């Protein structure tokens, strides 16, 4: 009965699709010989294709619906993948060891190109983790995150160009610059929420980019700044390969550092306040949490990480120009957080690798790359809107009295 109904619906979908695509897929006018070709075969293919797609889509939706009903009926949340990952030590310890070994030998068995991609992916992991503080934990939708990234990158580029300051000196300066810009932006906008906040941050991101593009005396405009020095290592000069491998290990260390800090932050008094703020702002205030201060902390800390990664970005590419800091970057970082699972560290890491590495390895099908990318995003949002890994936050458990 239900099946028959499904088939009927899919049938109508396919009829509708055949009708819609009829002019472009079936009729072809040959102007030279003044002939009209009727490609009926295409019509049949479209019909069958859309019928199958629609049927599968409906079937999956139904499955999802059934799954949810079942979970509701049982009255318990089925344990999510993320929870399993963080709580089952029998699983995660070997996985961690494998990941560590892989990370260690990676630069010695793969080509320079692969290492470069990996460094980029790691940078996005850190950016994702930084934005995760703002979006995932504190629930502030920030569409201008790339502005702080640009601030970091340009602080290294300019300080290096004008004063010859090295990477290690500027890294903390970039962090502080990001932090300060986070607070400058945060003060006026954090009384807004949701969509309004998103629009204002989007505007801020564009302002920073446009300033960099047009203020030639300050930032050298669209031509950017070249010949930025790579990170130094106690004065040793590396070959190009050596420099990339060094950068790779630097990024690995930096990623671990970020994971450590973010993990500690989210399991702290402040992290709890962020999560509570995301859950319910009014209740949060009524429980004595200073809304402005808490939001500002989240915003500024997120910006700090963007600032630091900006410095690393400038050091990696040895060249910065405003074109690297468009809204697409912000959207990409936000997609990483949303796709991976808001508020979950492991989710963001997986999300970053998926979103950065997939397009790289899909270069073979470069024509369809963005198509596949878009399809994956749509499918994810329909079937797993909460992200790949959900709810992987370590919750406070009471383990008996402390005497």
């Amino acid at each position, binding site marked *: 009965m239900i099946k028959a109904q499904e088939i009927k619906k899919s049938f109508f979908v396919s009829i509708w699709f055949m009708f819609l695509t009829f002019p472009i897929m079936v009729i072809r006018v040959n102007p030279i010989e003044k002939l009209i070709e009727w490609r009926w075969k295409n019509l049949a293919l479209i019909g069958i294709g859309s019928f199958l797609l629609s049927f599968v889509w409906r079937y999956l939706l139904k499955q999802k619906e059934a799954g949810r009903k079942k979970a509701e009926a049982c009255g318990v949340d089925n344990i999510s993948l993320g929870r399993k990952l963080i709580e089952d030590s029998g699983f995660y310890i070997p996985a961690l060891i494998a990941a560590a070994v892989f990370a260690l030998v990676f630069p010695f068995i793969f080509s320079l190109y692969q290492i470069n991609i990996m460094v980029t992916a790691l940078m996005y992991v850190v950016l994702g983790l930084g934005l995760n503080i703002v979006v995932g934990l504190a629930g502030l939708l920030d569409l201008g995150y790339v502005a702080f990234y640009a601030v970091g990158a340009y602080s290294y580029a300019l300080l290096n160009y004008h004063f010859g300051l090295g990477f290690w000196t500027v890294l903390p300066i970039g962090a502080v610059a990001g932090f300060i810009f986070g607070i400058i932006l945060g003060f006026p906008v954090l009384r807004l929420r949701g969509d309004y906040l998103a629009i204002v941050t989007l505007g801020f991101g564009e302002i920073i980019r446009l300033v960099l593009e047009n203020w030639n005396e300050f930032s050298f405009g669209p031509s950017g700044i070249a010949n930025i020095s790579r990170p130094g290592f106690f004065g040793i000069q590396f070959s190009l390969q050596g420099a990339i491998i060094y950068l790779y290990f630097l990024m690995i260390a930096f990623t671990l550092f970020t994971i450590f800090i973010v993990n500690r*932050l989210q*399991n702290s008094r402040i992290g709890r306040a962020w999560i*509570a703020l995301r859950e319910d702002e*009014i209740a949060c205030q*009524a429980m004595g949490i*200073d809304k402005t201060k808490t939001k500002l902390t989240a915003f500024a*800390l997120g910006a700090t990480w963007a600032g630091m990664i900006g410095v690393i970005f400038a050091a990696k590419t040895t060249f910065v120009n405003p074109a690297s800091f468009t809204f697409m970057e912000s959207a990409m970082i936000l997609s990483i957080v949303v796709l991976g699972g808001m508020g979950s560290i492991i989710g963001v890491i997986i999300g970053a690798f998926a979103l950065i590495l997939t397009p790289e390895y899909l270069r073979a099908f470069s024509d369809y790359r963005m198509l596949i990318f878009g399809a994956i995003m749509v499918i994810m949002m329909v079937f797993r809107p909460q992200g790949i890994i959900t709810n992987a936050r370590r919750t406070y458990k009471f383990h008996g009295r402390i005497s």
Partner: protein
Amino acid sequence: MRAGLINFMAGFLKNMISVLEVKNLTMNFGGLCAIDSLDLDVAQGEIVTLIGPNGAGKTTFFNCITGIYNPARGDIFVSSPWNKDKIKKQERINGLKPNHITEKGLARTFQNIRLFSNMTVLENVMIGRHCRTSSGIAGAVFRNRSTVKEEKEVVEYSYNILEKIGLSSFVNEFAKNLPYGAQRRLEIARAMATEPFLLLLDEPAAGMNLQETRELAELIMRIRDREHISILLIEHDMKFVMSISDRIFVMDYGRKIAQGTPAEIRKNPVVIKAYLGDEISA
């Protein structure tokens, strides 16, 4: 002479023990006068109930006291009965932010439950401890000894409260998975974690069955008697109100129309009229 002295003493005593004093409070929304020169006071150790028909302005009154709205006119004074220096110190709290008012020692619950549903029961109560603890970013990152100690104390304190409220069996559950009555009690627990001297409960018994309401009444009495927290509550369940209130204030159209003990209110013709309409009193 003697009468004057007694009056003076009585007035002094009354001032000594009044934890909340609202004078002439007025709140407007555009042209609508939601609260019109309302006076109200809560003495230490008292359970005071605010009743009134729907839309009388009770929740608006709560929102004014807890700083969600800034009242147009009037004064709200609080004085902590636990003030160390023993000198009566009344503080005006008009226009303070909600979090500062909570820090002063007023805590509230909400009419429509506002728990942090994706946090555990324990974490919900731990949020209440936020304003009584102080560790910051550095403490979170380095997890130094004082931070660890503070966290331990927060967990311990929160669990103690859950035990007092009778929710300790749910300690590690997500708040959203709790039964309705338990969610209401968890809101009270969370408010108590802020160490208030006055608890403001907005319709705590709404949607509860008879058994749950009875337990809630016992719980509120217990909070008053054991924790010495004064209570101001809004409620529609008359049986519940009459059984636990020391005094009742009745509001209608933003005004106070009556105040007194449950027995007085029950007989008050103005109250009956407000609730049941004109025909009854005619």
